[in-house]
C-alpha cells in the first residue's frame, strides 16, 4: 500500500474524532472560561503523548506476524462496532449523532455546574470537561495511528494523516467558533468502519498465517466487498423499518430511533 491511502484513511478516521473533541472544547471554553479549558486540553495531550511514547516503541518490538494478528483482531472488532452503529443510524434504528444537540447538552451542563478552583486551576469543571473530551477522543486517534502506522511500517504517514485532520478541524472550529454540525458524520463513520474492518480482516488473517490471493491487491476487492455488504445490510434494514411503519399504527417498528447511549458518548463511535 502506498502512503496516500494510509494518510487518507487515518485522516478521515481522526477527523471524526477531532470534530467530537472540538464540540466538547468549544462548550467548555465558550460557556466557562478558556484558560482552564486550554489547561485541560494541554494535560490531556501530555497524557496522550506519554501513551504514544510507551506504546509506540513497545508495539514495534513485536514480530510483524504477531503484531498483525493482534492489531488485525482489534481493528476488525473496532471496525465492526463502528459499522454496526453506522448501519443502525443509516437505517433509522438509532438517532443520528448530532453535533449541534451534543453541543447544547454540554453547554446546559456546563452552565449548571458551580465554579470551583482546585490545584492551580481556576475552573475545575472546564478543566475536567476539556481533559476528558480530548483524552477520550485522542485515545482513538492514537489507537488508529499506531495500529495503521506500525502495521504498514509507515508510522510517519499515519502521523501526517492524523495531524492534518486535527489541524483542519481545529482551524475550521477557530474560524466558525461553533460545533461543526454540517460535517456528514455518519457517512464518515460508515467509511471509517469499512476501512477499519477491511484492514483488520486483512492483517488479522495474515497474522493467522494465510496468504491472500494477489497479496496486497486483495484489499482492492476486500474493501469494496465490505462496503457493498454493509450498504446492503443498511438498505435491507431501512426497507424492513419502512414496511413496519403503518401510519397511525404506533407499532414498534415505527417507534422513534433510540438516542445515543452512554457508551457511545464515551467512545465517540
Amino acid at each position, binding site marked *: 500500500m502506498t502512503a496516500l491511502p494510509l494518510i487518507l484513511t487515518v485522516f478521515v478516521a481522526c477527523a471524526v474524532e477531532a470534530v467530537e473533541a472540538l464540540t466538547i472544547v468549544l462548550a467548555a471554553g465558550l460557556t466557562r472560561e478558556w484558560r482552564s479549558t486550554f489547561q485541560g486540553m494541554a494535560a490531556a495531550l501530555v497524557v496522550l503523548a506519554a501513551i504514544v511514547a510507551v506504546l509506540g516503541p513497545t508495539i514495534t518490538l513485536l514480530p510483524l506476524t504477531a503484531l498483525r494478528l493482534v492489531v488485525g483482531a482489534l481493528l*476488525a472488532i*473496532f471496525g465492526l462496532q463502528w459499522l*454496526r452503529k453506522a448501519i443502525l443510524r443509516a437505517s433509522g434504528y438509532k438517532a443520528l449523532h448530532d453535533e449541534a444537540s451534543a453541543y447544547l447538552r454540554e453547554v446546559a451542563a456546563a452552565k449548571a455546574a458551580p465554579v470551583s478552583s482546585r490545584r492551580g486551576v481556576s475552573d475545575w469543571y472546564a478543566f475536567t470537561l476539556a481533559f476528558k473530551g480530548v483524552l477520550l477522543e485522542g485515545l482513538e486517534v492514537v489507537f488508529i495511528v499506531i495500529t495503521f502506522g506500525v502495521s504498514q511500517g509507515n508510522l510517519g504517514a499515519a502521523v501526517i494523516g492524523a495531524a492534518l485532520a486535527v489541524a483542519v478541524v481545529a482551524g475550521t472550529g477557530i474560524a466558525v467558533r461553533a460545533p461543526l454540525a454540517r460535517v456528514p458524520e455518519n457517512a464518515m463513520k460508515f467509511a471509517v468502519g469499512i476501512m477499519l474492518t477491511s484492514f483488520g480482516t486483512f492483517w488479522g488473517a495474515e497474522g*493467522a498465517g*494465510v496468504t491472500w490471493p494477489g497479496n496486497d491487491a486483495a484489499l482492492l476487492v476486500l474493501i469494496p466487498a465490505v462496503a457493498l*455488504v454493509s450498504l446492503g*445490510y443498511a438498505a435491507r434494514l431501512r426497507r424492513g423499518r419502512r414496511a413496519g411503519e403503518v401510519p397511525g399504527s404506533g407499532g414498534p417498528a415505527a417507534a422513534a430511533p433510540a438516542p445515543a447511549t452512554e457508551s457511545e458518548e464515551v467512545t465517540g463511535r
Partner: protein
Amino acid sequence: MMRALKSFGAFWYDFVIGDDWQVAAIVVAALAVTALLTHVAGVNAWWLLPLSAFAALAWSLHRATARKSR
C-alpha cells in the same frame, strides 16, 4: 481502589469491545480457526475471516433490531 480499577476496566471494555461482545467473540474464534486450518490442516483459509465478519455483523444487527422491535 476497587472502584477505580472497575471503572478503568469498564472503560477499556467499552473502548475495545463496545456494545456487543459477541462480535468480538466471533472475530477471535474465526482467527483461531483460521490459524488452525492454515498451520495444522494446511488449508489457506483466507476466506474464513471475511465471511465470519459479515456473519458477525448480520447477527449483531439482527439482535439489535429485534430488541428494538419487541
